[in-house]
């Protein structure tokens, strides 16, 4: 009897483990649809970032003490003139959030470009040469990972001085390890391929083999990784700004706005909630797109 019960359980479980084709297709479509949502969100972000001077209804820096701390339009006392309300200096929040998009995207993309350059170069060298070079580079990666990122980035900004350029540098030099790890492993796999042997036997230089032959094969997985890392860099920039060691006021950065809004969260909750929502939606959009890209480019990497 007991055996029979277990058997029933076993068969029901194995059915569970192998979903029907229909549910797989549904799930796949759901995934792709999320990817489309992500792409649309990212498109809106980029458009806002490029055209914010035209699109924003007000000057993001213009103060008007007479209309300070106005609530968003859907709350009592809100007006159509300031759709998302105004901050403690009477500046239009919608315009500030829109201008913040530009800063976030510029910092996010620039920091990731820096991470890619450092990380991929080291990863290619470590993965291709192996041996001592690999040991040294792996050691560097371990040392960087032992550092609490936030403290290092904050100290760097504090020492270099808070400016757009220094924030990009701080995020760039602290975040490259993930690219080195992925590139290193992938390069090791590629090194065993016959085309590398062929290139070597044609006496191509190492530089040529790595840049013209190995690197192009890594581009799909690196693109996916870079996409997700842009989201991470945007969150990190806003965090630095939130802690007062990033973009400095009055420049409208989401993190700075959040920090300013925090002082008013007891009464004017939207001051902190709205810029945070902007960060969240951007990061979500980029992550959704990244996940979908991963599905398309590499079925092996697909999350189970």
């Amino acid at each position, binding site marked *: 009897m007991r055996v029979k019960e277990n058997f029933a359980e076993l068969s029901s479980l194995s059915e569970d483990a192998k979903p029907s084709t229909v549910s797989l297709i549904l799930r796949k479509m759901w995934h792709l649809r999320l990817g489309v949502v992500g792409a649309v969100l990212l498109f809106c972000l980029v458009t806002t970032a490029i055209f914010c001077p035209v699109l924003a209804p007000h000057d993001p820096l213009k103060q008007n003490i007479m209309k300070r701390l106005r609530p968003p339009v859907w709350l009592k006392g809100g007006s159509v003139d300031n759709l998302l309300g105004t901050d403690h200096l009477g500046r239009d929040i919608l315009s500030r959030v829109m201008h913040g998009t530009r800063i976030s995207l510029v910092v996010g993309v620039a920091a990731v470009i820096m991470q890619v350059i450092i990380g991929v170069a080291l990863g290619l060298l470590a993965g291709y040469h192996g041996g001592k070079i690999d040991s040294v580079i792996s050691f560097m990666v371990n040392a960087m990972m032992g550092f609490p990122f936030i403290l290092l980035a904050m100290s760097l900004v504090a*020492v270099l001085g808070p400016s757009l350029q220094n924030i990009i540098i701080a995020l760039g030099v602290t975040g490259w390890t993930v690219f080195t790890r992925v590139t290193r492993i992938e390069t090791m796999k590629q090194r065993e391929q016959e085309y590398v042997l062929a290139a070597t036997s044609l006496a191509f230089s190492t530089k040529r083999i790595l840049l013209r032959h190995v690197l192009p094969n890594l581009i799909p997985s690196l693109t996916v990784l870079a996409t997700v890392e842009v989201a991470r860099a945007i969150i990190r920039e806003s*965090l630095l700004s939130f802690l007062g060691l990033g973009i400095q006021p009055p420049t409208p950065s989401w993190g700075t706005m959040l920090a300013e809004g925090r002082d008013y969260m007891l009464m004017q909750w939207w001051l902190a909630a709205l810029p945070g929502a902007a960060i969240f939606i951007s990061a979500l959009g980029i992550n959704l797109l990244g996940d979908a890209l991963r599905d398309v480019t590499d079925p092996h990497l697909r999350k189970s």
Partner: protein
Amino acid sequence: MRVYIIKRLVEAIGVCLVISMISFFLLFLNTDPALLLLPPEAEMEDIATFKKQMGLDRPVIVQYVDFLGKVVLHGDFGDSFVAKVPAVRLIAGRLPATVKLALASLLVINLVALPVGVIAAIRRYSLMDNIATFVALVGQAMPLYWFGIMLIIVFGVWLGWLPISGSDSLLHLVLPAITLGSWILPVNMRLVRSGMLEVLNQDYIRTARAKGLSEKRVLIKHAFKNAAIPVVTVSGMQFGALLGGAVVTETVFAWPGLGRLAVDSIRMGDYPVVQAIVVIFAVCIILANLLADIVAAFIDPRIRLN
């Protein structure tokens, strides 16, 4: 096993050295420490005497060796520029609050991530699984400090259920622990789920079921134990994430721990304290990683034999 541990230990010491070096030279990157310490109106002569007094006129490398010697032999990072007491004493005073916060958030993480991860794996593609996947996706994009502020607004201000800052009672711990826990929870949930899924397809699970063990026993004794290995391995790295998250969480909730001390010290240019916190955090992270690797090697012979 012993060779493995020794090899990892040597590497860990090397990493600690590099980190101490970076945190020391950070101070010299752009500024002259003497100018930082003295009032701006100090004369050139005063600066020179001061440098001589503090040993700042020696070659940087000699200063580093001196710094390292004091740290290793006496645990002395120098005195705080601001509070004028040893940096280590400041840190010791703040440590308990951070440990309390970290333990509470670990509790939150494990109470949620383990059961949900297991259920999501057993009932794959069920509603629970889909909700868990969705929450993980959303959690990944949520800035930690914004989540904390939203919790304050909803549970502290609107509903008035929980205190929003300070650290007097256990109730004060609830929101910070949830905030910090939310940082790692999605990752652990996914790890448990994918670990369970992988294990459940193995032959030995089929064997265990075939020999008539109860499903509970199969899941807990046979499957979960093996599925937990990746969680153990990454827990070392997560410890670092937890400390980093504590910096943010403590700032949001005015929690009197090490993280807030770090933020305040960096803002005020209190370098001895910053250096001490960076080095102590890093040593903790490295030790946690080392420990996690060793534990994983004990649980799983494949790791130590490779």
